């Protein structure tokens, strides 16, 4: 309890809020549209994907409200990409601070994760607006969405902690991670409805990935109950717990690795 108090001490909160504020001020520095890009970027990407995959390739005809379904998936995936990519370089990027001042190192990773969270919030507003326009019925299960987002956040946090610390020593990690993200984008049912994959074993394998599970659960609870979730795929068997276990393992592993490395950041950067 005392440790928790120390983590959220007045100093740390002040520092965190100031770092996030700075991040936000500087992000769209000098661009004419400024903060509007936070909303515009995912929207434009969504339009491209929508035109290509829904209009041209006719994917997702069997899924009700497929555009929203697609948008929600993209928003959640983008959050994951943004948070991990930003955090990866955060420790090295703030090397000037780390070498010259004693501040808790995790605050730096934490602040970039909060910036990503704020963007997620803005993007979810876009989703909500689309939902209203499309007259989507609100399910009771929408109450589950925050829990699902927390899961995604913790998963991304574990990865972020691990990679930001490892990046201090291995500077080609960012290229590797970019490739992994690209692969993850296609291995996760974001663009295509899961029903397109007819092999059940393959479906099960895909659902071991926490991102696939989280995105499908989010779609189920917010957009349409007719999408497949890992509960259905595994038929309620214990295997459905694997993605949650993975999140916990990644989070704890990331924390432990970060802690073991944090003391020597100043020397190694």
């Amino acid at each position, binding site marked *: 309890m005392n440790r928790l108090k120390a983590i959220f001490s*007045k*100093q740390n*909160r*002040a*520092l965190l*809020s*100031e*770092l996030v504020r*700075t991040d936000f*001020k*500087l992000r769209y*520095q000098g661009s004419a549209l400024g903060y509007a890009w936070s909303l515009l970027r995912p929207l434009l990407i969504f339009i491209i994907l929508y035109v290509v995959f829904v209009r041209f390739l006719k994917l997702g005809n069997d899924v009700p409200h497929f555009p929203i379904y697609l948008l929600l998936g993209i928003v959640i995936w983008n959050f994951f990409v943004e948070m991990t990519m930003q955090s990866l370089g955060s420790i090295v990027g703030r090397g*000037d*601070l*780390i*070498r*010259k*001042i*004693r*501040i808790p190192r995790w605050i730096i990773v934490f602040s970039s994760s909060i910036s990503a969270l704020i963007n997620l919030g803005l993007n979810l507003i876009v989703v909500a607006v689309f939902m209203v326009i499309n007259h989507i019925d609100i399910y009771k299960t929408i109450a589950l969405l925050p829990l699902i987002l927390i899961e995604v956040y913790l998963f991304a946090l574990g990865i972020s902690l691990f990679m930001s610390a490892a990046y201090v*020593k*291995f*500077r*080609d*990690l960012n290229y*590797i991670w970019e490739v992994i993200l690209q692969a993850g984008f296609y291995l996760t049912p974001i663009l295509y409805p899961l029903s397109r994959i007819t092999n059940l074993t393959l479906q099960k394998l895909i659902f071991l990935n926490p991102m696939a599970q989280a995105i499908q659960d989010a779609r189920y609870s917010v957009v349409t109950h007719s999408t497949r979730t890992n509960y259905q795929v595994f038929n309620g068997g214990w295997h459905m717990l694997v993605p949650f276990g993975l999140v916990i393992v990644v989070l704890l592993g990331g924390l432990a690795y970060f802690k073991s490395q944090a*003391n*020597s950041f*100043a*020397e190694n950067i």
Partner: protein
Amino acid sequence: MDDIAIQVDHVSKTFKLPHEKQTSIKGFLINKFRGGKRSYERQEVLQDISFEIKKGEFFGIVGRNGSGKSTLLKMLAGIYIPTEGNIRVNGKLTPFIELGVGFNPELTGRENVFLNGALLGFNRREMEAMYKDIVDFSEIERFMDQKLKNYSSGMQVRLAFSIAIKAQSEILLLDEVLAVGDAAFQRKCFDYFMDLKKNKQTVVLVTHDMSAVRQYCDRAVMIEKGKIVHEGYPEKVAQEYQKLFTDEMERLKNQERETRTAVADRWGEGGVYTKSATVKVSPSKILLTTTYIAEKDIDPPIYGFTVHGPDGTNILESNTLRLHQKTQKLVSGQQVELTWEIPNIFANGLYDVSVACCDQSATRFYDWLNEAASFKISKESATAGAVDPLVEIVSIKERSR
């Protein structure tokens, strides 16, 4: 332990420097694959350092570049972790070692004040309360809403210093902050240091500036090659530090002299040739003997000399005219030997002597020989500065009020 602010207990710091820095996974894997251990060079930056800083003490750390003093300061600040040993800090300590850490050129001065404040552990409300003080001290109020990148470096330093000193902490760490800003601002800083000293604030000062060490510090240590070589009175430490440079300079001078060609740095129209110049140093006086040879018949000339200090300043000059000393006509081939006696009031250091000979109107120089001789002063000293005359206290009258 109660009256001790910082206790440094047998602290060593070793950096592992990989022979080839491996910042790629490929390099790491290849090395693992070969089964070879990564070859490190262990660099012992600090070895077995121990000292204590008492509460209310103004403590100086001096040392040359690369002596390890900055590493020590970083460990005191908690940025580096000692490889061996312990550092115990009793009280809140400034966590930074450089001014303006985290300043962002794209933010305004005002925004930077808040960001910097947050790095020092103050939230916005506390910073609002201090903001006016900070701006007043820095004297750059009308620039506060401009971006920092449009500031001059002097203005940035003013702002940084003003924030740093307002960030009240029990133990202040200051690294080379004295050499910043213009004269007026420096005076302000010095006044501030005096205040700190008066208020019995615990301060750790890392500096090259021996006058600051003499003026403020209660105690000091000198670090050389990762070890404490002197500890104690600031005056003593400052002297040892300066001796380090005197020795070094002498070595360099000797080297220089050896490599210099036979033609010394001399000029003049000729007529009189300076054959030699020698200096004898005794505790009380310095004897300078110069020998001249006339190359032709010369009207009575003026003989003179100049003593240059370690940094090249003109410390002392005199000549036969100033001393109302009549000289004789010289005939070709005649040799003249002069001996000057100078009281030894010189402070520690290495001095150069230039000698010259010119006509009575001082418009025609026969011969001028730069650095004709040099001498070194190294002694126990009761004063500081360019000269070191005997200073005595005649009386102290401590009247009761």
